């Protein structure tokens, strides 16, 4: 492949949605959906092209404006960036379709039902997300995180209802505090190393220096707020449940993944000299408490969307169990000969949790949105007898639930399998009860809904359902199927993840992988 071509390609996933967003602002509202969907399709296409490029030519990087680091800003595209880019496109396209159909089905100038700003904001958000995944510069990440926060909050308050506005302001302030902590950390890092490029920083950061330790703590805390990790999750349930369903799906499935992604990258690429066993354990403990607390809260909610939002808090906790498992006790690491085998498992498991939660949670929010649309209220009881009335949506909900619980065969199963395995082989067995208990609680709230869905028609409220456009049901189902499929085709995803992975693959695949992966 021509290197010049590949270089210009790698900025496309940022430029395309950005151009689409600007176009949408210029277009009259009724044409925005078409332009937005076209942009979504093109973005997916560019992400696929980049994926193919990654598999054929390996990691690519591009210096913006031709300036190399440390002066210029670099874009870098490796396996990790690739899977998150693909996740965003594969979730974003069906959610966009869903949104377009939903807003078209509610004509009229009611701002709450048919927001004209959805498409420009969502495409801006998409550009910011893709930028975060490809960016390789600490300060650039700050700017993109801020743009993401602005666009995300604007989407969350689309309905204009007072509850949403209030939740939106709290969300925004929390995000700003997170950004400021992050920025302060960035300033300290620059002071210590004189560089902002992630690749250069990894080598240049003086390990163990006090300012680097402080910077690390500040950046980590800022990102924990943005990712809504217990106990910094206070803003999430309100904000995610007050938004329109497709927006909730985007916020829960994608936006918090971006800050998780930055967290992950900085942890393994930049601060690998500063992270300690204790730091890993602390982050893991927060994650473990989040798993139990979030799932427990979800079980207690009486309103559908709040239940799903609380479930996000729990599921995010699982992703953070990755960190104690990849952060070794230096003494133990020195005693062991060769790299421990479980690092790769933990790495894949944590990322797989992020990916499968993306699909499953998007499907679940869309499904719940359809229930609410059809019945007209947000009470759990409103799903009574849904299996007879909206079977496809109930099925989508069930598939998403299966993945969240971690039942096979689903993405969530692969994630929990890998995490649990790493837990046992690293002898950090104390995480295992948390993983299992979280699954159990998750099963509790998922099956509580399914139980109601199977209840007889006699117990359902006598109201007629409002008609639901088929496309809404199809998109929810597609995402639910996606959550199952990535559990069946895990080897392909892992093939991508391997490109530039920090931990070597511990186990040889039993059969020959399709296609040649060379990095």
């Amino acid at each position, binding site marked *: 492949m021509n290197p010049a071509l590949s270089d210009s390609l790698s900025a496309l996933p940022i430029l395309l949605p950005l151009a689409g967003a600007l176009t949408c602002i210029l277009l009259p509202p009724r044409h925005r959906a078409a332009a937005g969907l076209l942009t979504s399709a093109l973005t997916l296409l560019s992400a696929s092209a980049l994926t193919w490029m990654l598999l054929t030519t390996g990691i690519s990087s591009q210096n913006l404006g031709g300036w190399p680091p440390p002066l210029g800003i670099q874009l870098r595209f490796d396996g990790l960036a690739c899977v998150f880019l693909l996740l965003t496109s594969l979730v974003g396209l069906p959610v966009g379709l869903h949104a377009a159909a939903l807003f078209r089905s509610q004509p009229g100038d009611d701002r709450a039902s048919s927001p004209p700003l959805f498409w420009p904001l969502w495409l801006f958000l998409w550009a910011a997300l893709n930028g975060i995944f490809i960016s390789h510069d600490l300060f650039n990440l700050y700017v993109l995180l801020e743009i993401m926060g602005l666009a995300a909050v604007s989407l969350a308050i689309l309905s204009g209802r007072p509850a949403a506005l209030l939740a939106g302001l709290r969300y925004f302030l929390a995000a700003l505090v997170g950004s400021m902590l992050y920025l302060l950390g960035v300033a300290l890092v620059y002071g210590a190393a004189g560089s902002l490029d992630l690749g250069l920083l990894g080598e240049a950061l003086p390990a163990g220096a006090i300012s680097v330790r402080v910077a690390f703590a500040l950046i980590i805390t800022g990102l924990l707020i943005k990712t809504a990790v217990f106990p910094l999750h206070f803003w999430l349930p309100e904000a995610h449940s007050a938004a329109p369903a497709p927006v909730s799906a985007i916020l829960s499935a994608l936006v918090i993944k971006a800050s998780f992604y930055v967290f992950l990258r900085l942890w393994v690429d930049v601060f690998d000299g500063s992270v300690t066993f204790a730091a890993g354990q602390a982050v893991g403990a927060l994650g473990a408490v989040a798993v139990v607390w979030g799932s427990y809260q979800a079980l207690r909610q009486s309103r559908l969307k709040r239940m799903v939002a609380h479930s996000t808090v729990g599921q995010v906790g699982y992703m953070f169990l990755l960190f104690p498992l990849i952060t070794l006790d230096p003494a133990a690491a020195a005693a062991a000969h060769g790299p421990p085998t479980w690092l790769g498992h933990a790495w*894949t498991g944590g990322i797989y949790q992020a990916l499968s939660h993306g699909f499953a949670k998007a499907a679940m929010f869309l499904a719940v949105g359809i229930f609410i649309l059809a019945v007209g209220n947000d009470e759990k009881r409103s799903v009574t007898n849904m299996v*007879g009335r909206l079977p496809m949506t109930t099925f989508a909900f069930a598939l998403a639930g299966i993945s969240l619980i971690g039942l096979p*065969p689903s993405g969530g*199963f692969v994630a*929990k*399998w890998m995490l649990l395995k790493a837990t046992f082989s690293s002898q950090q067995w104390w995480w*295992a009860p948390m993983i*299992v208990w979280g699954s159990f609680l998750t099963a509790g709230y998922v099956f509580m809904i399914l139980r109601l869905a199977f209840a*007889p028609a006699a117990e359902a409220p006598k109201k007629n359902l409002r008609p639901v456009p088929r496309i809404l049901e199809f998109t929810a189902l597609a995402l639910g199927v996606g959550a199952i499929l990535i559990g069946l085709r895990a080897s392909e995803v892992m093939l991508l993840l391997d490109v530039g992975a920090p931990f070597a693959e511990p186990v040889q695949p039993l059969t020959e992988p399709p296609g040649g992966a060379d990095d």
Partner: protein
Amino acid sequence: MTDHGWLLPLIVASSLGPGIVIFFLRDEQVAVRTVLNLLGAVLKVALIGIVLAGFFRGDSLEFRYTIGLDLEFHLRIDALALLFTALSSVLWLVTTVYAIGYLKGSANRSRFFGFFSLCVTASTGIALAGNLVTFFIFYEFLTLATYPLVVHRGTRKALEAGRTYLWYTIGGGTVLFVGVVWMFTLVGSVEFGQIHLLGDLPADLRPQLTLLFWVMIAGLGVKAALVPLHGWLPAAMVAPAPVSALLHAVAVVKAGAFGIMRLVYDVFGIELARDLGVLPPLAVIAAVTILFGSLRALAQNDLKRRLAYSTVSQLSYIALGIALGGTLAAVGALVHLVHQGVMKITLFFCAGIIAETFKIHRISDMDGLGRRLPLTMAAFTVGALGMIGLPPIAGFISKWYLGLGGLELDQPWVLVLLLLSSLLNAVYFLPILNRVWFRAPAREWKRHRHSRRWETSGMLLWPALITALLSVLLGLFTTSGWSVLALALEIVESWFPPAPPGLAT
């Protein structure tokens, strides 16, 4: 590995495919659904016939698919897998016919038959699974596919039962999950039959292995309804009769019993299990379950509940045979796996006919039913006598081998247990037979709407008669080369080291 490995996923898919298509049918499309159902069921039996013939010629089939890292989807055929798939596919065919007749005109049939097919897909998958992961995947899949069947009626009682069922099975599944992952971290991917993997572990890991064994038994014991994990089974009998029949005879409970077999003989291996000393406690649990189930069955007036407790008791014969750890006892367990299925499905078919035709659920209302439903009650009688262990019905063979197994191992208490339990079986089955055949009917029986020619709808009656006949034939032709016993002997040969000490003494 031979070229025909694709046959195995095809066997699994032969019920999965129709199942998925059926979901999308409207309830009124009876003809299409029936054709699809029967096509899938017949295809499955035919495919297994082909595989069976190939197996006796010495072919071995295998299918592998890597999910990622060391997660591997692996199907393969061995004698035990063959035994279980043959059982489930034949009984599925019969039950499908029965279910079509049973649910005629009721609501949500497409959903029912969709999940019904998925349920059989899962139990076939469990049978063909070549490693622990694949087994676990289908084991959980079975939980999910059976839940909608248990709550199918949608009544409050059904939903409650469904909840109980889910808590038990999800809990068991989670525990099993921990066990499977734990085993992976010890020895990597365990294929069934690779008993040397665990056996070769250093001796200081033995306590850990003992704990691991019990964790996995706790996970499997839920579905196998070992006391105290049996609570879901009597609750789940609120499901429609064909579901109970399948649940109790093949699908769920047998998945548990089958899993215990695989665990003891194909993962740990009999020698390691003996060394760890885990078998005697397991035998005690099984013995307790046998007596407990029988005693509880005595107290039930609801026919299906009595049958359900009888299942709890009868199932543990399998666990007992496994846990005794001798060749003849293992033969008894294997034979009982099949024989109990055939007999119990007959009993549930009959209970369903009685409930469907006359709305009778309680045993005390069954006086004189034999005059109105002679054929049904004849089938019921065969099943009941078989459960008691009367020759020449199939149940006798299993008890005979279990008893021999006890003697072979010099454990005469097994004989006492068998006699006691047979006595209890007789005490809870014979009064029913007495009522049905020798008491005067309490009321006039109305003619039934389903059929003029038969005592009830033919689609309900024939399956019951066929399985009753089958339980007699299985008992009569035990010694023929193609019988269950022959397969069981072959399986046991592979489990026990050559020149088993039991046979010599």
